[in-house]
């Protein structure tokens, strides 16, 4: 919308402001990643120049007292499995509710409850999850965290997949039906190919949200089952905070997000904006 009349000077100002804002976003992250390469003394002295060392990363990843690699693996497992379950459940449910002959009140109650549930602070439900998981012997297991993350992300996935499922032309589904397609065939051959971009967007977001989730993971895990955010929080809880190791762990923890940002930005943007614009 930058009309030529409004001139290059305004565009210049806009660029200057945007570069400033980008610096506000990027500098803190870069500074902390760099802190991961410093020695504790160099960081505490506040010197600007330093010789990079890999000590912190070695300590965080390979020292005998650190479980960070295990935490990383836990987070990957929890993220992958909860995303998988969440996506399958949400896609099937969204399709069923939007395209099958349900009574309208039923559809409203289902989506309504998902929305209400999405508003609850997870910490309000964490206590009940903790009690229930404990009573069925799932306390301190990855299964408990996987289940909790699945249901936490279900409303968002349901909503997003609902948008994508409604974009599938009804005529196509009807045509497939008339050709005698049963529901499984219809879903696999007609619906699935059309909602694939939606699935990509939703799964990236679900994975990231599971990867980032802290409060529930904190309450449902112990040392061996802790996820990455729980492990990073431990650094800050110690009596003497190992700042540079915390920085190294933080840098390692944003790697998956960076990879997803590079390979799937299109999907992330689509997923984040889909609900708001439609």
């Amino acid at each position: 919308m930058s009309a030529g009349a409004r001139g290059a000077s305004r565009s210049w100002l806009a660029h200057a402001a945007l570069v400033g804002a980008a610096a506000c976003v990027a500098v803190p992250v870069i500074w902390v990643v760099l802190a991961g390469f410093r020695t504790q003394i160099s960081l505490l002295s506040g010197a600007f120049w330093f010789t990079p060392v890999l000590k912190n990363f070695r300590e965080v990843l390979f020292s005998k007292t650190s479980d960070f690699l295990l935490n990383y693996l836990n987070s990957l497992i929890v993220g992958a499995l909860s995303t998988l379950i969440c996506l399958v459940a949400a896609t099937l449910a969204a399709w069923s509710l939007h395209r099958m002959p349900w009574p309208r009140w039923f559809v409203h109650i289902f989506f309504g409850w998902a929305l209400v549930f999405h508003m609850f602070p997870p910490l309000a439900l964490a206590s009940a999850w903790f009690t229930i998981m404990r009573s069925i012997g799932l306390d301190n297991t990855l299964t408990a965290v996987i289940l909790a993350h699945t249901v936490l992300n279900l409303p968002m996935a349901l909503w997003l997949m609902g948008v994508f499922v409604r974009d599938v032309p009804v005529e196509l589904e009807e045509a497939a039906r008339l050709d005698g397609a049963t529901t499984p065939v219809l879903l696999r051959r007609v619906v699935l190919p059309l909602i694939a971009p939606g699935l990509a967007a939703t799964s990236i977001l679900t994975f990231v949200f599971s990867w980032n989730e802290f409060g529930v993971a904190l309450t449902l895990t112990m040392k061996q089952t802790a996820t990455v955010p729980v492990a990073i929080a431990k650094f800050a809880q110690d009596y003497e905070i190992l700042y540079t190791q915390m920085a190294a762990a933080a840098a390692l923890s944003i790697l998956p997000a960076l990879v997803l940002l590079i390979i799937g930005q299109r999907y992330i943007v689509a997923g984040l904006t889909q609900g708001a614009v439609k």
Partner: protein
Amino acid sequence: MEPIAGTAAHAAPFAAGQPALAKRPAAGDFDRGFDERVWRWAALSPALVLLLTLSVLPLINLFITSFFTVTWSGGHSSLAPAGLSNYRALAGDTLFRAGLLNTILFAAFAVGGQMLCGFVLALLCNQVTRGRVLYRTIFILPILVPGIVVGAIWKLLLNFDFGLVNQAIGLIGFDPVNWLGSASTALASVIFVDIWHWTPFCFLLFLAGLQSLPLDVYEAARIDGASAWQELVYVTLPMMLPTIMVTFAFRLVLAFKVFDEVYLLTGGGPGTSTQVVSYTLYQRFFREDQTGYGSAMSIAVIFMTCLLLVAAFSSRRQTGAAR
């Protein structure tokens, strides 16, 4: 579903191999009804089971527990009926009250700040033609960073002794400030960190909204000689209202859930200056093992969330009716 003229023709090759079906022209529709009845339940059931067992059941569990005093000994719990005493105790809990007040303050200022910053950035980004994707890439980054890592980043940056922020204000001659350690600046610091974390999200939604606005309205405004300011107030803002409302709702919901940043940055302190509802819940239930009382608090928080939802919906209905 009325059988359409094409039905028989389409079904014919399929039915030909199945003489039993071929005798009845409407068989396809019969089968379809059965197929739909089975599959609509089959497709819904995973999500239904998940929601029933992990959202409805816990809620019932919380509700029942909230009327008991639970004592733990050796990993076993014993329940003693407590009537409404847990709920009565809530009113006198200063931590809970501080948590509620701070959460409201936090949500109001953090969401307000993010929306304002996000809107300005989106307007700027929408004006430039070059580098828009690059800016967007950088701005998305904080959305993807775990809340706890955002906390860790700013715990380092706001550190009294060596943090970048104190170094920077030292360069222009100010004394270092104990951002997270003094009661007067702690909540403001947490709000600032949240604004940093979520302005990009608001920016992204607003930018998508701006880009979907019809261009001809701007043409018309320009022909009528509207200034840039008039264009913003009379054209952009009214057309952006739906996007603004949705973004506001999204962010408000998340702001009321705030936990991660507070846990890492301040732990609710100093004193109760950054105590927020989720953190109070965590403290009472998990740190102090007050299972019954914690459940009552959870129910109270959930109830308030529902009230907020009802208020939001009724106000939306009103504005909808006014239009």
